[in-house]
Every structure is written in structure tokens, then in C-alpha cells.
């Protein structure tokens, strides 16, 4: 192996690694976005049909279903392409770990004390989305995050359980749309 070939090998490996890590960036947004949307529909229609507010406990299925979805995705990805983690991956993982714990603790608190939980959730999800967007340097995700944060005032203007439906739609806009766009861009770069 000569010197030029060594240098070319180094740059090719680093380039390939970067591409590989960009692939599938949007999956976590899709998994959590769709999960939150489906659960919000389930909560809304259950309460509307029965009038029983205990169906609010269905919210606690969100971390369970989201985690199952993420582990299925990660297992498939690792099985076929192996696993690698860089600084950006670790930062994003830590951001969402903190947001997830904060969301869970807030939800537990909301079981005992009444406060505008949906607004707090939108604020937390918006902060997580904006921080992720800034970390991966993707403007659309940053904008979605700030829209999410701003939309935390929306539930105050809506009366009754329709708040839940609006919350689900905002999550869909804030997370699912950027998720699909991120995946599309990742696929295009790998072609």
C-alpha cells in the first residue's frame, strides 16, 4: 500500500462512517411522533365515549410503546449494519433521556395535582426537538421545535377534551413531518 492509497483509505472510511450515521436520523421522530399521536387519539375517543377520565392513564403507554418501537428499529439496524456511536448520537440520546424523564415525572405529578399537563408536554417536546435540530444542524427540525414550544399556549384556548386531539395533531406536525423529511434526505445522500 503506497502513501496516496493510505490517505485515500482514511478519507473514504471517515466519509462512509459519516454517511452511515446520518442514515435513519428521522426514525426516532417518527416512532415517538406516531406513538404520541395514536395514544392521544385513544385517550380522546375513550374519554369521549365513556366520560371516564381514568382513561388518561393510557398516556403512560407512550413510553412503553415508544421504547418497544425504538428497540425493534435499533435491533434491525444493528443486525444488518452493525452499531456505531459518535458524539452527536450520544448528545441526542442524552437530550431525549432528560426530556423523557422530565415528561414522565411531570405526568406522575399531574396524577396528583391539576395543572396544564398538555402545555408542559408540548414545551418539553418542543425543547427536545429544537435541541436535536441544533445538534444535527437541521433548520426544519429547529423551527418545528420552536413551533412546538410556542404551541404550548394553544391548549389554553381550547375547552374540554378537544385539547387532547389538538395536542396529538401538534405532535404530528412537530415530529412526524421533520422525521419523514430527515429520512428522505438521509436516503438521498446514501444513493
Amino acid at each position, binding site marked *: *500500500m503506497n*502513501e*496516496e*492509497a*493510505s*490517505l485515500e*483509505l*482514511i478519507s473514504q*472510511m*471517515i466519509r*462512509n*462512517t*459519516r454517511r*452511515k*450515521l446520518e442514515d435513519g436520523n428521522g426514525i426516532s421522530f417518527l416512532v415517538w411522533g406516531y406513538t404520541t399521536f395514536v395514544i392521544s387519539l385513544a385517550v380522546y375517543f375513550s374519554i369521549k365515549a365513556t366520560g371516564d377520565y381514568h382513561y388518561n392513564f393510557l398516556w403512560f403507554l407512550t413510553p412503553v410503546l415508544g421504547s418497544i418501537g425504538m428497540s425493534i428499529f435499533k*435491533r434491525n439496524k*444493528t*443486525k444488518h*449494519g*452493525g*452499531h*456505531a*456511536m*459518535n*458524539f452527536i*448520537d*450520544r448528545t441526542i440520546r442524552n437530550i431525549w433521556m432528560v426530556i423523557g424523564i422530565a415528561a414522565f415525572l411531570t405526568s406522575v405529578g399531574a396524577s396528583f395535582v391539576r395543572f396544564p399537563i398538555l402545555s408542559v408536554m408540548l414545551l418539553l417536546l418542543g425543547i427536545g426537538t429544537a435541541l436535536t435540530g441544533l445538534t444535527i444542524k437541521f433548520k426544519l427540525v429547529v423551527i418545528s421545535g420552536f413551533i412546538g414550544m410556542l404551541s404550548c399556549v394553544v391548549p389554553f384556548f381550547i375547552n374540554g377534551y378537544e385539547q387532547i386531539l389538538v395536542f396529538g395533531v401538534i405532535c404530528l406536525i412537530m415530529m412526524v413531518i421533520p422525521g419523514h423529511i430527515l429520512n428522505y434526505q438521509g436516503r438521498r445522500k446514501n444513493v
Partner: protein
Amino acid sequence: MFKELNPLLHSELRLGIMSILISVEEADFVYIREKTGATAGNISVQIDKLSEAGYIEVSKGFLGKRTRTVCKITEKGVNAFEEYVEALKSYLDIKGL
């Protein structure tokens, strides 16, 4: 003047593995195999050599029922890689590339 190229890194597969590990915090065996396109046996031998030299850390664990080998570059490995690249530059400078 030419700087000596580290013979441990001046091998296609070992250099490939080090180049992958320099750009990530950790990578598992499957990932390295997919990126280098080398055989599992060959990668295993080269990983052992890099590990014995203290250039990488290897940890073994489980992912479900399957064993999983995860590699990380060490500080010594980073220094060796940087010295290797510096040495390469000295060759290329003299050749006028």
C-alpha cells in the same frame, strides 16, 4: 525528511479499522465488517493486534442472545494515528502532491 510510517498502522485493514474508530466513539464488530468488507476472521486477527498494541479497547457483551464485540480507540491509538497521518504528509509533501 521522511518520517517513519508506523508498520502496525501501515496495513490496509488495520488502517481501515483505525480510520473508522477515529471518527466514532465506538463501533461494533458487525459495523466494522460491513464498512471494511473484510472477512470476520481477518478482522478478528487485526483487532487483536491493535488491542495488544493498546491502540483500541475491546469489550464483549450480549445483544439478545448474540455476543457483541464493541471497539473504542484509546488515547494511545489517537496519538499513533495522528503521527501516522503526519508521517504520510511528509511523504506526500516531498513528492509534491
